[in-house]
């Protein structure tokens, strides 16, 4: 269970999903750009942030349509080669959103699809994190979701630490909060 204060969790819940209202609601017309009065009618199809969708679906006040990045087309693409699919542009919080959708959707295959995706990509991410040059930003990072980027970074950090330990490099460092070293000070 993620923490109340967790920023990534919070931002994952900000992704919009499309829901169909089973009930009507007054005074929230701003959600539905198509509504003329300030209300959302029964049966209206509205894009709402995930945090709202979660609660509405749990109360049976709406049902959810899975977003495009969980469509059959993407799943086929993922089956072909998980390592090549660009997840980042589709949804930076692919796994976070997916996990939150599992309890509120009727689609029983979503959970296993997420697992399949991660399993297919995990090895690739890890081996690239260990072998990529430290200074550059490798191409593979452009297609990783936020969760995968953190995994990548963790692999990379441990590799850097290991290399530093091998050459007995410096162990104390300037606090990161102060920013990069001033170039003009060199020489």
């Amino acid at each position, binding site marked *: 269970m993620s923490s*109340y*204060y*967790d*920023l*990534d969790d*919070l*931002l994952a819940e*900000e992704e919009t999903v499309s829901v169909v209202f089973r*009930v*009507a*609601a*007054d*005074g*929230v017309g*701003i*959600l539905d750009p198509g509504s003329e009065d300030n*209300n959302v009618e029964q049966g209206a199809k509205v894009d*709402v*942030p995930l*945090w*709202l969708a979660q*609660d*509405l679906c749990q*109360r049976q*006040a709406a049902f959810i349509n899975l977003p495009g990045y969980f469509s059959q087309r993407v799943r086929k693409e993922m089956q072909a080669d998980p390592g090549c699919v660009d997840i980042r542009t589709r949804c930076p919080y692919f796994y976070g959103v997916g996990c939150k959708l599992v309890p509120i959707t009727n689609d029983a295959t979503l959970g296993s699809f997420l697992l399949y995706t991660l399993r297919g990509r995990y090895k690739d991410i890890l081996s690239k994190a260990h072998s990529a040059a430290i200074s550059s930003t490798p191409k593979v990072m452009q297609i990783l979701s936020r969760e995968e980027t953190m995994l990548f970074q963790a692999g990379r950090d441990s590799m850097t630490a290991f290399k530093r330990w091998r050459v*007995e*490099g*410096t*162990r*104390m*460092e*300037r*606090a*990161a*909060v*102060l*920013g990069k*070293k001033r170039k003009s*000070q060199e020489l």
Partner: protein
Amino acid sequence: MFGRRGAQLCSELAQNDDERLHRFDNDLFEHVIEEANEHYHQLETRMVKMQQEGLDIETTQNRDYFGALIHHLSLIRNKRCLMSYVYNRSQSVQRLRWQLGAVLPADLQDKLNYSEIEFFKNYSELLGSYMTNIDLDLTVDSTPPKDPYIQVRVMDDLGEVLLDDQATTLLRNSIHLMKRTEAEPLISQGLLEEFIG
């Protein structure tokens, strides 16, 4: 509306991977609070309307109920955004104490808002008095020491500094052997660099 701004506030923090502290975003923070107030008014209007119609708020599930519900959820969402913005920043402020010591550089102080500076002072005092009580400086030796002395290179002209109860003049690019415990805070503040020759 509906938490957009709150998320914007938090995404500013989340994107900030290099651990650098940004200025406290007062404008956006106020906006989110305003938005929360707006949701509260809307919520109140719905509730009053239901009461006037003589409906039982706890059991009725009409259009007004769901309108009120959505505003209620938005209110809570905004609160969560504000709370986690403040909380995550406070974590960074705590780290500052460990990395830079009890006195903040002026450019960092500008980035904190009034209550964060207050928080830093109180936290620093608390940590200070704890360390005095147990008679141990907890902020040094964050990595296990191999040798009580280390070689350092001076990054800037620092003038006369009291080291090991002796006044020493630290000139830029000069190399010194000094006590590790004395060097560590200075390295963390970026005044010295560990030198491996």
